[in-house]
């Protein structure tokens, strides 16, 4: 027990690590603030592409979505971080991570939003057009609000995954929360910083996890 406390919950080491961990948390939040909006916008673009008449456009959206959903994000990230320099472009870690996240999360958001748009019956769109709304207005005011509400739980779930995903940026030495915690761990030979990082993630994401449980329960309560 003694060893567990001094090895995992060592307050002295926590105090030393705290400033670094906070800086790491800042980087994690910055990464989320960049990657998640990019992913949502990219996903929305993909979902809208799947509604147009041109078969070419629809199919390219589907191929893109399936391609990037099949890749483990870490594989994508390493491919970009290690591969791009051979093309004469050496991205700073933050840019490499942002590109990988954009490709990965946009494909997931795209799939979810596409399913949402498909869940709104065609009659809604036709009725909206019949009242004189343009194609875009019908999408903006009639179809999308219902589509987004229908896939709310999936959007929450995917956002949770996207935030957690930022931890893989540590593998390419971006100084986010996990990377910083591991650095401090290797200097102090003590696991407290990594445990603290885990607790920070838990506090950060607990509300989302609770919300997800509520949604999952509601989803099956409607008979």
């Amino acid at each position, binding site marked *: 027990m003694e*060893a567990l406390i001094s090895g995992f919950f060592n307050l002295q080491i926590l105090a030393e690590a705290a400033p670094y961990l906070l800086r790491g948390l800042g980087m994690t939040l910055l990464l989320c603030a960049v990657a998640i909006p990019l992913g949502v916008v990219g996903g929305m673009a993909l979902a809208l592409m799947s509604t147009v008449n041109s078969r070419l456009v629809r199919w390219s959206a589907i191929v893109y979505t399936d391609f990037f959903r099949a890749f483990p994000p*870490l594989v994508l990230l390493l*491919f970009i971080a290690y591969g791009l320099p051979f093309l004469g472009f050496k991205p700073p870690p933050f840019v490499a991570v942002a590109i990988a996240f954009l490709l990965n999360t946009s494909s997931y958001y795209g799939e979810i939003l596409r399913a949402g748009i498909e869940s709104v019956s065609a009659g809604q769109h036709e009725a909206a057009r019949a009242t004189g709304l343009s194609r875009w207005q019908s999408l903006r005011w009639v179809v999308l609000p219902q589509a987004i509400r229908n896939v709310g739980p999936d959007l929450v779930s995917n956002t949770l995954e996207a935030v957690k995903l930022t*931890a893989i940026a540590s593998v390419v030495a971006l100084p986010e929360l996990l990377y910083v915690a591991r650095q401090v761990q290797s200097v102090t030979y003590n696991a407290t910083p990594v445990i603290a990082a885990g607790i920070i993630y838990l506090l950060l994401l607990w509300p989302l996890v609770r919300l997800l449980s509520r949604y999952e329960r509601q989803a099956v309560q409607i008979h």
Partner: protein
Amino acid sequence: MNNLVDTFFNLAVMRQYLPQVIQGVGVTVLLAAAVVATGLVLGFVLAVLRSLRIKPLTLLIVLFADVFRAVPALVILIIIYFALPTVGIRMSGFVSAWLGLSLVLAAFAEEIVWAGILSVPRGQWEAARATGLGVGQCMRLVVLPQALRLTVAPLTNRAIVITKNTALASVLAVGEILYQAQAGYAFSYNPSPLTLGAIAYLILFIPLVWLGRWVEGRFAWKR
């Protein structure tokens, strides 16, 4: 263009590292299968235990599910592999990855199965009990068959997500696809082994992406 082919699709390099990557495919498949089997069974058992509604037990299960859903899988793997040894608990990279990813899948599976169990109206329990079935029989013969049908789609998707997380095991030096590809890249200083790894992932996971979409349509979250 020639340069691009030589860099990313260098056949000589690919031929040299193909055996290692194929070996990696075996490890990835084994790890994924072990994680899916353990995680789903554990999640299922926890959900059934939760339905006994024993207060302290429920509290522990909810705490477990929340922690392992909120903390990124990579952080969990790093704690198991790099932090537990400091208190004398040592496991190989493969076992650490298997344990960590199984716990993550179990946490998500527990919540999904629990939502499924809750969806069966109380009257069904009461009616089944009134006909003389015991609590266990009632669970096994009446509640679970209805609950599980609802959980097929979300459980399949969760299982697919977790199999992609096997790439994280490369951080623990488990010789799966990504680790082998990275090693090949480091030895040859040519990204072709990474391309090979990426192709291996596509071959493994594109069918799973399609399976997920099919299951989603076939067993939607509704009755």
